[in-house]
């Protein structure tokens, strides 16, 4: 929130290797996410983008390497410290992951009720506020099954924001949304970053989103099993030495041009 921390490293990933048993998915990942960045994790389908996100939030343990938040090692932290760190995260899962037995307001209230000492009336007010922020005013008493997929996703975002997180993680925010809804969600992400100063980590392969919201990114490559680019996506599109990255960021156009020249 404070201006002085903006631009300082928030998340540092050091020599991270992701593996399932003996199968190594990605190795030697090294990157830095600064405070108030919108950081994009991108790469082709099945390259391990979501898996990297799951490592960052602690759902999967790294096979090797460390993840640091504000200089504190998350990987080696003891369970209590880890729980405190996780509480500063807000995570929007791919399909919302709302609790189907609870109403929207109850979904948002759940973390507030568990982790703050607020009276029920104020919890309800905060829940209503969060739902209003994502444009769901008046839908407080609906169950997730009674609203559309896009609304479920926005409600999931309201729940992710319940505790005013310092870092918001988004797993494929625009999957299953029409172009206008996904644009609105992008605007919302930018607005939240501007007003809350939160750091935002997004897994996506939507090019329009990548250029609209992202100011920092990492590109995961399946063939080499490691990251092949890191930095501002617009810079990478124009100046990345790796053809594969330029091809991805221009929807293959760059690559065909190069091939034609080659012929």
């Amino acid at each position: 929130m404070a201006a002085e921390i903006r631009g300082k490293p928030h998340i540092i990933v050091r020599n991270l290797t992701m593996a399932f048993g003996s199968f190594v998915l990605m190795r030697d990942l090294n990157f830095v996410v600064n405070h108030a960045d919108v950081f994009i994790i991108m790469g082709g389908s099945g390259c391990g983008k979501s898996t990297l996100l799951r490592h960052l939030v602690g759902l999967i343990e790294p096979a090797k390497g460390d993840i640091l938040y504000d200089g504190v090692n998350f990987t080696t932290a003891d369970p209590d410290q880890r729980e405190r760190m996780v509480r500063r995260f807000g995570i929007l899962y791919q399909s919302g992951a709302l609790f189907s037995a609870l109403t929207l307001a109850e979904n948002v209230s759940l973390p507030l009720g568990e982790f703050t000492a607020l009276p029920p009336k104020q919890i309800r007010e905060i829940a209503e506020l969060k739902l209003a922020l994502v444009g769901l005013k008046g839908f407080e008493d609906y169950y997730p099954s009674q609203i559309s997929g896009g609304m479920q996703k926005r409600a999931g975002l309201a729940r992710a924001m319940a505790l005013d997180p310092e870092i918001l993680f988004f797993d494929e925010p625009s999957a299953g949304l029409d172009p206008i809804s996904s644009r609105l969600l992008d605007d919302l992400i930018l607005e939240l970053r501007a007003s809350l100063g939160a750091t935002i980590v997004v897994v996506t392969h939507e090019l329009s989103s990548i250029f609209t919201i992202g100011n920092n990114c990492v590109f995961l490559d399946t063939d080499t099993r490691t990251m092949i680019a890191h930095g501002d996506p617009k810079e990478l599109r124009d100046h990345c030495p790796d053809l594969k990255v330029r091809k991805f960021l221009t929807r293959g156009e760059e690559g065909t041009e190069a091939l034609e020249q080659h012929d």
Partner: protein
Amino acid sequence: MESTRSVARQPELSTRRGPDSTLIVELKGLWRLDGTAPTFDSLAPRLAAEHDLRRVAFDTSGLLGWDSSVVSFLVRTSEMLRVRGLTEDRGGLPSGLARLVALAEAVPERAGARRGEESAPILARIGSSGIAAAAAATDYINFTGQCAIAFARLLLGRARFRRADFVEVLQQCGSQALGIVSLIAFLFGAILAFMGAVQLQQFGASIYVADLVGIGMAREMGAIVTAIIMSGRTGAAFAAQLGSMKVTQEIDALTTMGISPFEFLVLPRMMALILMMPLLCAFADVLGMLGGATVGVGMLQVPFLSYYRETIAAVSLTNFFLGLAKSAVYGALIAMAGCFNGFNSGSSSSAVGDAATRAVVAGIVMIVLACGIFAVLANIIGL
């Protein structure tokens, strides 16, 4: 040091009059979602007490930090100001805060979205639950009809289902259930023998424990015990399987492929239970009688051979086959209760749990009802 600092950081709310009928609301200190931040309720009476007011402005120069507590406070304040027709000057707010408040107000409430508290009068509630019960009964009849059609197609050789599925269900509700059925049936036979023995010993008629256990298990108890175990074990599993298939739209996918879910899902399950229940029941009968014999030989000192002969003499084939026939019917009822509730499950994780519960309850109720009907029928035709 911490205590002196915490005084200055205490969240505070104060108001003062400014020029031009303006009320300046001053926010100070560190506002956090920890229950210490003032709420709108503490501002409301002060606002109400002010006269000839036209504008409300904010002074946040002393605000050290903020989160949702301030946003919530401001959103409620501006709602109130709008109701009272006062202008609000958000110039004194930090830009992030002003943007968040604007964002919260950006999408107006959709008309008709909000629902009032539903408190229907008691008569209306009785009426609507009656209507719901009637609709459920219609559904059940419909379901039974669909099952009958599926069976008819099976007899004509036109039913579509995977043989591999059928074999898997057979295994699931046949051999895999053998352990639990054996254990319960053995214990049940022993308990039956023990209870009979206490009474029969008084007349020196201990040997008739064999008759009691033999006829009891073969005619009624073997089938009932097996049916109740299978209802809890397999009926609930059917409901949960079909319920979660409904949640993930697998049943819709089958329907749109032109495959009847009744043939594909219900038929193999129902056939498997109808085939396996009599086998399990025969097994339960024998183990129940063995349980009885254990008590008879061990506690009443009846020689095993006498107990065996008495049992053979007492249990007629009619009793035995009557029990097996019943168990086949119970199997059909369990499969129906399970599949029906699975098909009619809601589409949430808790609804699938409810469907499994309802499948077990409905299954057991139907088994006991059917048992009663069988008793009356057997009496009429003199079996």
